[in-house]
């Protein structure tokens, strides 16, 4: 899940009686599954929440390029290098689609970037973990993209038109991402003893952070009710997390690697896997900025942006020069 714990700015969901006429009409449209478009009337809290959610999602795509970019120059074959570059390029595209969707809500991309760089806006906690071996590239595709897709498919039906349309495009393009990750894991698990160990080590490090991607347990999610009423959050954190575990455990079995969770077991009555307790204190620390890579990731983004300022300015200056020459001619 690329957008975690999005603040809705409201303390409780309003009942019909508390709503203004406009709010009631707005909620009725959402309840009838009619998409909200940028120029339609919307409650200010809805607009602000969406800006937070969509921009956070966009930032996650852009920051998410860095842990994988860490291995582009060291990919072990030309084919893997090309696939990885194409995948990271897709993520740049997805960031761009999402920034564009947020821009329809009346915020500029520059403002969103400034908010990311100042620490005001967040991105997914998962990208604050390091990619230490090539197997991590496999694990990210398999687990992180797997978790993201699980969250993003329902969002194709969300209430805000531009966000839903961006999600449709993203889901279409992303179908190969998870597969390429699993394909890397497959090669490693069929490889040498060292490669198998590499795959196991990557799973050990990425499993729990992947489960944390879905956000805190439903009972502790303050803003979920409002987001659900607005249909910008379709399924609950725990629901998605359970689906993810159920889907992923057999895939790990097939690879012949072991989930780093001694409590993991199939419950035939519930028809689900039971899994051990998630260490939410780690999650909170990463959110606070104390993950292994928070500082590096943000510093890299800020440097790229600052280093590019003269390039962006030059392009604008040149465009202005050309426009004025055309007017003279």
């Amino acid at each position, binding site marked *: 899940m690329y957008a975690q714990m999005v603040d809705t700015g409201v303390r409780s969901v309003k009942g019909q009686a508390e709503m203004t006429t406009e709010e009631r009409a707005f909620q009725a449209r959402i309840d009838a599954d009619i998409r909200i478009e940028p120029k339609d009337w919307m409650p200010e809290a809805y607009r602000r929440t969406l800006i937070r959610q969509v921009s956070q999602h966009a930032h996650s795509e852009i920051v998410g390029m860095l842990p994988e970019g860490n291995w582009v120059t060291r990919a072990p074959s030309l084919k893997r290098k090309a696939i990885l570059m194409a995948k990271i390029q897709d993520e740049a595209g997805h960031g761009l689609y999402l920034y564009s969707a947020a821009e329809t809500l009346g915020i500029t991309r520059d403002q969103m970037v400034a908010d990311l760089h100042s620490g005001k806006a967040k991105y997914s906690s998962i990208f604050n973990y390091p990619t230490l071996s090539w197997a991590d590239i496999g694990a990210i595709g398999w687990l992180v993209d797997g978790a993201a897709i699980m969250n993003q498919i329902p969002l194709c039906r969300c209430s805000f038109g531009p966000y839903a349309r961006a999600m449709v*495009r993203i889901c279409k393009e992303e179908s190969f991402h998870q597969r390429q990750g699993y394909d890397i894991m497959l090669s490693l698990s069929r490889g040498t003893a060292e490669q198998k160990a590499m795959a196991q080590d990557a799973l050990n490090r990425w499993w729990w952070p992947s489960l944390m991607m879905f956000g805190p347990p439903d009972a502790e999610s303050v803003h979920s009710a409002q987001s659900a009423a607005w249909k910008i959050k379709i399924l609950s954190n725990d629901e998605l997390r359970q689906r993810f575990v159920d889907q992923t455990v057999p895939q790990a079995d097939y690879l012949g690697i072991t989930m780093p969770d001694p409590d993991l077991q199939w419950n035939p009555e519930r028809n689900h896997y039971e899994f051990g307790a998630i260490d939410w204190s780690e999650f909170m620390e990463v959110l606070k900025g104390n993950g292994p890579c928070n500082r590096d990731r943000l510093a890299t983004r800020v440097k790229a942006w600052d280093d590019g300022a003269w390039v962006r300015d030059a*392009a604008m200056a*040149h465009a202005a020069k050309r426009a004025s020459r055309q007017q003279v001619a």
Partner: protein
Amino acid sequence: MANEWPLWEVFIRSQHGLAHKHVGSLHAADPEMAIRNARDVYTRRNEGVSIWAVRSSDVVASSPGDKEALFEPANSKIYRHPTFFPMPEEVKHL
């Protein structure tokens, strides 16, 4: 910040002969860059054979408040739709 590249709307015509379709937006400093960026951003999977890029600020849009005035009259002109005219089954190619 005042120097942000302007926003462009991108329209792409696919190979199937359909009209240009809005696919999304992007930032570009000038028209050539808008077309090239559109090619690199929105046709990575052979999506199109022709690109239009329009400055977002140049798009004139209807406002949602006018929806009734603009679109409801069309609802009463169902004769514009071919299914309005039932044809005898024996008559072909119509």
